[in-house]
């Protein structure tokens, strides 16, 4: 359809106060790290926070999904810990560089004299030396490239002061950015939903967090965190498969060489691949996680009819609802019915769900309703009504069917008589990249120019400045 051009009087810059300064936005999460240019609507570069690490000497790291393939002496690691705080400070800057420089600014061509195409074939013998030289120039180039770009990095609301300072050092010392800012993910998710005051519910990969945002700032006392997230849900699915009759074995895709379609519940007819080397368990776990995510996307649902799943009669009703068939990479397929609902029930009801090993079990006050209640109790009573009217839902795990309806039901049951409004972006990308999008908005605002922490301020105050400024 013809798009109505904006008249010159109503150009977006005037309306939204945008003034882009080629800023970059980096959003590291436990499952994925996202990076892109401020002002765009989706991150240009999305990489798993998992990376491959070859233990053979010399050790080497592999970044990017396409490079995580079966290899000898190959482990999958994550530079973040399960609190979504950066743990491995050797690798984190490397991944981030890879994304911010190699992936986001690829148009900077290597000059023809150095791109290897014009090399004299006779000189090929001095390969090693040439490589070293190139690496050096590359390093210099890194410094140069980010000297142009202010950088906004997101962090979990409970990020430690240590990690914040470390981030600051990397940005300022290693990359030489002219300015930077650290911002908490719930604040940015609220911005992405167009709100400065909101109750942000982020059900992500490694954890779920609830935080109250007031006027663009997180209320620290309200921050609540629980391990129920994508990984917890994966454990639920594993538990379901373990306990179901017959037991379902999870064979990840990389192990299957070929398969023949079989009927539901029929024995698998597939040939598996064999590798002449040992596949590390972490690699297998990573690959399994992919299958589990697929299962979440296509089968898992949240019970969204009135009441909870274990309210009388509901379970029987769930059995009558249409099921979904899921086919495993090795061809095993099965219809899933009421189990689909039971998997997610633990998000809201700690007594429901499938049995988990002791260390993964969650307590009574770690379900989403409990987190919300605790978060609201920690803020001034005058704010609560407004917060409930501005509930922002973000994080990939909230994409499960029925999540928002259920949340609405739970909140209505908890706070009868309050006006409850849930804002969940309709576009999946906006829910998956909520924090990044908020950062993109923030960093492209004209009024944000005065917020950036500049290099000079950093040099005068040291890395401690981030604690003072990014409150």
């Amino acid at each position, binding site marked *: 359809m013809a798009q109505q051009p904006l008249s010159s009087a109503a150009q977006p810059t005037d309306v939204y106060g945008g003034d882009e300064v080629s800023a970059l936005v980096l959003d590291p999460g436990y499952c994925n790290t996202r990076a892109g240019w401020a002002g765009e609507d989706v991150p240009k570069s999305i990489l798993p926070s998992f990376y491959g690490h070859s233990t053979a000497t010399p050790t080497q790291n592999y970044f990017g999904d396409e490079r995580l393939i079966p290899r000898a002496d190959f482990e999958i690691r994550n530079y973040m810990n399960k609190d979504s705080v950066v743990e491995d400070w050797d690798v984190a800057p490397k991944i981030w560089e890879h994304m911010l420089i190699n992936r986001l600014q690829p148009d900077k061509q290597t000059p023809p004299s150095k791109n290897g195409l014009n090399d004299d074939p006779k000189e090929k013998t001095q390969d090693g030396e040439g490589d070293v030289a190139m690496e050096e120039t590359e390093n210099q180039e890194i410094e140069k490239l980010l000297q142009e770009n202010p950088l906004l990095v997101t962090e979990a609301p409970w990020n430690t002061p240590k990690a914040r300072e470390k981030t600051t050092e990397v940005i300022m010392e290693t990359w030489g950015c002219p300015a930077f800012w650290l911002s908490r993910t719930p604040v940015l998710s609220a911005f992405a939903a167009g709100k400065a005051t909101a109750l942000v519910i982020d059900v992500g990969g490694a954890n779920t967090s609830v935080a109250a945002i007031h006027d663009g700032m997180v209320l620290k006392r309200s921050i609540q965190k629980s391990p129920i997230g994508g990984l917890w849900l994966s454990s639920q699915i594993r538990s379901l498969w373990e306990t179901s009759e017959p037991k379902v074995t999870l064979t990840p895709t990389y192990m299957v060489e070929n398969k023949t379609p079989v009927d539901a519940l029929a024995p698998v007819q597939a040939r598996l691949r064999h590798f002449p080397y040992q596949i590390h368990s972490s690699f297998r776990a990573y690959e399994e996680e992919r299958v589990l995510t697929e299962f979440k996307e296509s089968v898992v649902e949240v019970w969204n009819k009135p009441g909870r799943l274990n309210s009388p009669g509901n379970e029987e009703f769930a059995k009558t609802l249409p099921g979904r068939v899921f086919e495993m990479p090795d061809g095993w397929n099965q219809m899933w019915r009421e189990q689909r609902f039971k998997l997610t029930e633990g998000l809201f009801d700690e007594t429901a769900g499938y049995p988990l090993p002791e260390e993964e079990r969650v307590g009574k006050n770690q379900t989403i309703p409990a987190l919300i209640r605790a978060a609201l109790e920690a803020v001034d009573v005058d704010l609560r009504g407004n917060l409930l009217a501005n509930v922002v839902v973000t994080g990939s795990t909230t994409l499960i069917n029925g999540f928002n309806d259920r949340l609405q039901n739970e909140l209505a049951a908890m706070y009868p008589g309050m006006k409850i409004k849930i804002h969940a972006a309709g576009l999946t990308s906006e829910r998956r990249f909520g924090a990044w999008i908020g950062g993109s908005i923030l960093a492209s605002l004209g*009024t944000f120019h005065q917020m950036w922490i500049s290099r000079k301020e950093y040099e005068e105050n040291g890395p401690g400045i981030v604690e003072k400024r990014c409150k």
Partner: protein
Amino acid sequence: MSSSDVRDVLNLSEGASGTRPNKKQRLAAPRPNLKGLAREVHNLGGDNPIAIVPEVTQFKKRRFANRKPASRWEMRSFRNSARNDPTLILKHWRRIEEKQSNQDSPAEELKQEDGTQEGQAPTQDGMEDSSFAKFNAQVSVPQYSDDQYAQTLTSDTWTKDETDYLLDLAKAFDLRWPLIWDRYEWTPPATNGEANENGDESKAIVPLPDTQARTMEDLKARYYEVAAKMMAVQKPVQYMTQPEFALHELMARFNPEQEKMRKNFALNAFTRSREEAREEESLLLEIKRILARSERFNEERRELYSRLDYPHAETDISSFKSSAGLQTLLGTLMNASSKKRKTLPGPEGASPSNPAPPQVPVQDSGRRESSGPSTGNREPPATGTPTTASKKGQSQAQQSPAERPKLTEKEEAIYGVTHHDRLGSGPTFRTEKINKLFSHKSNQQQLRINNTLNELDVPSKLAMPTSATTSQYEQLLGAVNSLLEARKVSDKLDGEIKIELAKKAEREKANAPPDSEKSKAQEDPSKESAEGAAATTAEAASKPGSTEPDDDEEEGDTPQNTTAAGAQTEEEEIGVEGKAVRPGSSGASHKRSASVLSTASDKSSKRQKK
């Protein structure tokens, strides 16, 4: 993909191809306008072209028409003077302004305008300042010196350090109290008294329990106290301007207890149960309904008042008192009304609340139709004057007098049509008439009438003064009057008889017994007359007795003929009520007849158009 492909896919026959050339013709026109996807989509529609919002091509056209070279953009450095560190230089893309280009080009002007609009005034070194710097606003928090603190601000519960900390927070968070309270983590300085600028880490670890105890109200109370006192120190209260004083008062009067109580209430409201919430909701709904209803009542009442509020004659009427004067008046009125009639079918039908001009009742004076029995005495239909009742009938009469239906007596009763020779001007209340009957009497008499009515169990005010009940009531009052009259006479006679008897007894005592016969004979005629009087009283008494049940249907012990009468009144009442529902019947408001006329003729004219 064309429409025939779609037809193939959908298994539709090409049978309707007879319309093809026709369709081609039709499509020929819009096609050149559509391009790309829009055209494809349009083709999908086949015989039923999809409505496509026409593309606005103006923008593109203008761009292509502009043969000038594309404008140049540059990465321009700028700074932001609102920053704490204004040396940060950032870069953004901006259009290059070509100073040497011809002056009269409008584009140049536009650019300049843009420049001023963005307010990018070049700073001293020629680098532009961010246009967003002006949005920087800061709150000012009170400042005080050590001496000032010692003099005015000391407090039992607050140390100076903590007060400093509070004010710092207030500034850092722009007085957003939820945030200040949220981040409030005061720990008294370490015992060695070493207050380190950056050494937050050592302190921030163990928040003392009593700092948690500081509520938001405590913080606010302290802040407002400090602010109010410092305000007074800087400018004594008597010199303050009005707003300053108001602010000072507001801060000085801050009552944390009241705030706490309010918050407790809010908390209660927050934790109420579902039932309470539902109850509150239903109460709110009820209130809404009541308010809406009272509003409607008020509206109706206002309309009623505006109806009753007939325009008073302002001009002197003495000139119309002679017959010649009347003649001229009639002439002008006839003119006016005929004009009026012409305009009646127009769209501006007068609304019921519009006060109609006073001539309208006069216009109708030839054949008076009162739709309400404003006077009790009913007249037989005047000969030659057609009887019309409802609006409908009236409008029909307007349209074609020949077809005017004649109402039977019964129908008239049903519609409450009465005919009068003369009517007083303006609307009157029926109760007014009854009141008149009362007000003519002396107080004594009124009292007596009321007593009698009480005896009969009839209220002295009619609850529902319909025409039937008022007329019956009038009759009743007449009967009561005659009864009272009769009673008076009989009382008088009784008194006389007693006097005579006493006289007689005395005379008997005084005279000798031989006189007794004579006195008896003398007395006889008086006795007879007394008896006659008594008889008439009884008659009079029985007369109202027989009419009374007519008025009061509640009294069940009525003879046959009265039930019939009762039935009749009932019928009448129904008629009156049915009529009262229609606007423009009750109260015989003459000014409204015009509007009724107009709406009626509106309707009929519409009907005619159809």
